[in-house]
């Protein structure tokens, strides 16, 4: 499978890209830091079966980079079967309320940037008759909650977009996979106190890979968060105002 990957340099993206490389998928990495991309490409070459992935520059904060990056990747790979987006930003609600420039950047990257990137990716995939688009949203988008108001809003928008894509284009061959991670221990969440059911990147990546292979439109990872969110979605407003999560 030829995979275009945005976000493989760190966290869950790193873990997922390694599993793909290990089973022989051809990867092409996009990102915003040349040095980090080169390091990740070397890592995947050593661990993988398919040689060194190509790399290209693409910043979710800069929409002018999207189309050329995707075109170049597609040409280098000889066509795309799958596009994965794990890239994203996080900030605690307190930090974002204190720094509205940072909040604006996060909303821009996680929502507007990601959606427009996906539109370009969708066109590239559908031009070849279809393929899989796997994008990381979050459980934070499932319900407006005190500790993740702004970040959660960016992911709520993204989840809604991804669901609509699935409804609109599945019949035409575009398979959309929306991943909603719960708390996973990566650099993004280091420094936060892990709640019960915190996950690790490798098992999450295994679950996501299965969902990609099967074309599951939406998954929670780790699995337990499906039930956690099920309960949280049922809680009445007066309870949500009281509790800390």
């Amino acid at each position, binding site marked *: 499978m030829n995979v275009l990957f945005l976000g493989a340099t760190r966290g869950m993206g790193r873990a997922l890209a390694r599993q793909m490389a290990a089973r022989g998928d051809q990867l092409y990495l996009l990102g915003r830091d040349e040095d980090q991309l080169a390091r990740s490409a070397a890592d995947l070459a*050593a661990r993988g079966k398919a040689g060194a992935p190509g790399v290209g520059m693409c910043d979710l904060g800069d929409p002018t980079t999207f189309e050329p990056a995707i075109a170049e990747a597609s040409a280098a790979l000889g066509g795309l079967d799958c596009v994965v987006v794990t890239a994203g930003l996080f900030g605690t609600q307190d930090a974002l309320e204190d720094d509205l420039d940072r909040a604006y950047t996060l909303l821009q990257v996680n929502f507007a940037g990601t959606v427009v990137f996906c539109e370009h990716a969708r066109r590239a995939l559908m031009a070849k008759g279809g393929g899989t688009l796997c994008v990381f949203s979050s459980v934070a988008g499932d319900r407006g909650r005190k500790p993740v108001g702004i970040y959660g809003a960016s992911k709520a928008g993204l989840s809604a977009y991804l669901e609509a894509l699935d409804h609109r284009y599945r019949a035409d061959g575009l398979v959309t996979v929306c991943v909603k991670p719960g708390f996973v221990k990566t650099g993004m969440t280091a420094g936060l106190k892990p709640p019960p059911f915190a996950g690790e990147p490798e098992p999450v990546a295994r679950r996501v890979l299965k969902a990609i292979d099967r074309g599951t439109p939406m998954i929670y990872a780790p699995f337990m968060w499906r039930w956690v969110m099920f309960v949280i979605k049922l809680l009445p407003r007066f309870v949500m105002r009281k509790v800390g999560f």
Partner: protein
Amino acid sequence: MTDQAHIEGWGRIPGPGVERFGENLDRLSEQPTLFRGLGRSYGDSSLPAASKPDVVNTTLADRVLAWDADTGVLRAEAGLSLYTMNRVFLPQGWFTPVSPGTQFVTLGGMVASDVHGKNHHVAGCFGQHVRALRMRVADGRVLEVTPTQHEDLFWATVGGMGWTGAILEVEVQLRAVSSPWIHQTTERVDNLADLVARLKEVSREWPMTMSWIDCLKRGKHMGRGIVYYGDWAKAEDAPAKFPPWSREITMPIDAPSWALNPLSMGLFNFGVYNSHVPKTKSGLVSPETFYYPLDMVRRWNRAYGLAGFTQYQCVIPDTAGIAAVVRFMEALTATGAASFLCVMKDCGPQGQGLLSFPMPGTSIAVDIPVKKDTAAIVAKLNALVIGVGGRIYLTKDRFTTPADFRAMEPRLDAFLEVRHRWDPERRFRSAQSVRMLGDPDLPGAA
């Protein structure tokens, strides 16, 4: 109990500290800060000084940066674990040149402790096989440090417990193996003197050796145990299939303080020793069975309960003779402090790392559950070790006094001189360097 404000080593005695995680070690080391890996050192080696409570955890920096499958030269970020190296490179016919008794260690930790393994008598320590380090030093520079470039810093960092700078990348020569299987022989020996002699004998013929000793047994069977030795199996003798990786289980909770008592530990040892029939066994085993039996139970350190434990590891030099080993074991058994795990190993020549642990002699390692008298017991054992010109292993230690350390370490001044050259303000310091080297630890100290 590793939470926001406390960190612990493998022996589970906590100290104040806050871990900082990240993939980019260059960025995380902009301010000189102690580094730690997987925290498998037992005592306070990987704990920060109380006045500088930040410590960088390297485990997210785990990328392979260069790999040459023809020559076996590997370059990687310092947080790459041996666990991953085994899974990626053993199927390609390459293994770490030196392996400790657990694969849950990082490259940086293996260099900083200059670890030794079952092949010490033929391969030396890990540092012997390191070709280059990329380091952050105290003045803020990032340097390529090799046995020929900044040579003094290189050999002070190998075995230097993180006190000379932060290791960002490691380049090491892996060793080619003839197959991924190990041909192992184990022999039961029923007393200490015979066991030490047998260990020396097999070490002359076999590249990988060690022994397990029942150090609870007194009288004429004192020091009875099992000698293990082996080598990588030749390709033609090995099964065609790759040995299966074992599935680990996790010790789910802390054992209550009474769980490990003389009776339960004695029963365990009795079981291990007496189930070893016939007297000599041979066969092909997986590298995990041979090297990492303890890794089968994740977090087995919980077996010692919340009070924690320490490991006492020393080397008794060959110059003192087998009699000195017997005397040491007698003293150890007499303290009644030892638990079931006691490992004995024959060490080869001393390496070039200025504070590397091994020297020609017999290394003895034993777990000691922490009680009120633990410091006194360590002091007593240290006195014996100093008396015969031996030394202890820093990466296991928590209780040795600065005076004892100085008495057993004639190389200390040479090390301190190099450290002073590279880090005059001793900015890279740990709880252990405060305790052992008298590093400043006043609140607000730079």
